[in-house]
């Protein structure tokens, strides 16, 4: 399931709901990304997230489909925040369920790399004296490239 939420994300509640649905899975991995309180700009007051529906949702759905062909996953949940959020709030929640842990770990890692570098979002950090649009770092692109190397082999 894929959700873009303008409301705060309650990761513990999402995990409980996910575990109820996937009771027979055996392995559940979740990742939560939180808004960092400090950046190159200094103190972050607000992080603003733009999406472009339905392109954003369609792209994430495609990434989930690819993950499901690559790993034996019974369930996947991706919840991404949009709009304005404060430091410490959850910006993204990813959960994967599988029979065994390795598939669940790797699929969650893969989906996060997709979300960081290819998902259709734009981020703006607003500090006390400046606002700057944040684009993926070189490390993010390198992380995402690991999965393409895997496809080639």
């Amino acid at each position, binding site marked *: 399931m894929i959700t873009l939420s303008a409301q705060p994300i309650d990761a513990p509640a999402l995990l409980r709901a996910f575990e109820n649905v996937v009771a027979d899975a055996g392995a559940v991995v979740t990742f939560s*990304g939180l808004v960092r309180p400090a950046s190159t700009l200094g103190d972050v007051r607000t992080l603003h*997230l*733009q*999406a*472009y529906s*339905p*392109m954003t949702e*369609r792209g994430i759905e495609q990434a989930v489909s690819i993950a499901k062909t690559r790993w034996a996953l019974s369930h996947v949940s991706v919840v*991404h925040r949009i709009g304005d959020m404060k430091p410490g709030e959850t*910006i*993204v929640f990813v959960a994967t369920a599988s029979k065994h842990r390795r598939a669940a770990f790797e699929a969650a890692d893969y989906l*996060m790399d997709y*979300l*960081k*570098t*290819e*998902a*259709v*979002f*734009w*981020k*703006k950090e607003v500090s006390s004296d400046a606002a700057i*649009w*944040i*684009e*993926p770092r070189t490390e*993010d692109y390198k992380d995402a490239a690991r999965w393409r190397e895997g496809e080639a082999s």
Partner: protein
Amino acid sequence: MTRILYFGRLTDIAGTSEEILDLPASVETAGELRTWLDLRFEADGALLEPTVRIAVNNEIAFDADALSGADEIALMPPVGGG
């Protein structure tokens, strides 16, 4: 009439996130739109960067693609969430 959307840092360059325009007859392709908008905003090439992608009616378009039938065009700088 075509709805043009500007995302990310292009919002700042355009001074708006969205506008509705009658495109001039000379703008027939996605690439021509790039050039025309770059001059219009005096963006100094910011819209010509290959990392800025164009979506026509929610599908990624190449510079040579025609804009005929375009209801909504989005100008998209590098994306990334999480």
